[in-house]
């Protein structure tokens, strides 16, 4: 489900280099200017790709983690780990259904 305020933060960071620099210096202070839910605030501070991915457009997510300075290979690896989780869940669900 799209979260407007997390999306807005990502969009603003993409368009405002000064804000992006400020964010790199003090993430919490910038996050607190947006109406971001506590669990999403925690996810932002923890670079929790898995929690943030369903909240924003996938392209914005990529731009955000570029601004955060996460190497693309690491970003992709974290996304692929989500795929593994999804498959594992599917297998568990399927096993439960057939078991």
């Amino acid at each position: 489900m799209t979260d407007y305020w997390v999306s807005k933060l990502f969009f603003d960071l993409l368009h405002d280099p000064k804000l992006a620099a400020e964010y790199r210096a003090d993430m919490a202070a910038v996050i607190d200017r947006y109406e971001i839910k506590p669990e999403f605030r925690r996810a932002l501070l923890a670079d929790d790709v898995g929690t943030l991915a369903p909240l924003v457009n996938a392209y914005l997510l990529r731009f955000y983690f570029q601004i955060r300075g996460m190497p693309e290979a690491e970003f992709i690896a974290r996304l692929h780990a989500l795929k593994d989780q999804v498959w594992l869940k599917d297998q568990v669900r399927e096993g439960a259904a057939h078991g």
Partner: protein
Amino acid sequence: MAELVGVFAASHGPIIARDWDVMPADHRNKLKAGFDEIGQRLTACRPDVLIVVSPDHWVNFFISNLPAVCIGIGEEHDGPPEPFMQKVYPHTRLKGHTAFGRHLLETALAHDFEPALSHRLRLDHGTCIPLWRMGVDIALPIVPMIVNDLEEPMPSIRRCLAWGRLIRQAIESYREPLRIALLGTGGLSHSIGEATMGWIDEAFDHACIKHFSDSDDERLAAFLTEALPRTGNGAHEIRDWVVAHAAAGSKGFELIDYFPSPQTLVGAGFAAWKLSPT
């Protein structure tokens, strides 16, 4: 009367610009050959105006205001805002064509299409990577048409086909003898910022190529409507190829090249359509 003189499509992707000088030479040469061929064919058409159908990568629009389609009718547009693009394509202003852009907009409204309009768009890497690599003359006026290919819900494939036909109608009803070409950018398959990031769905790409080679719009629409939700999110940019396909008259196309490009995360495609007689 204006005339449609060429219809083309090419992939784009930020890494093409970002890593152009450092990617393996053989791969760069393959990309270069595709872009060069399209660029040469476009130049040979001697266009007066180029319509560029492209997505917007969160440069002009946000989820607070996100048009399905926006037509740029300004006298000028801004060059790419992305720093990686400014290094390779340092043009801050690109020439528009207000008269034809406005005619396209009015033709759309007269036929019950309701696009957004912009008197000044910022043209991101989706538009500017092909312009850069194809060597398009910076003086060639551009009419940008932005299609929402990024955020669901998106325009249906049938609507994109209808848009292509409408563009053709607008060209043929324009009174001045302009030579107009069209470039669709994006695709083929790719996956960005999602769990399958990096996946290039070659089976999807080859199926698209087959459908574009045929002239059955219904089958093309049925295939894409069914297949797009099951492949990577970047493949939604195929809508821009669909617009090109229908503008050309859906008479098949010539695939200039296709190859998976894991280095740039896209199924790289380059094509020129056969034009149906007016």
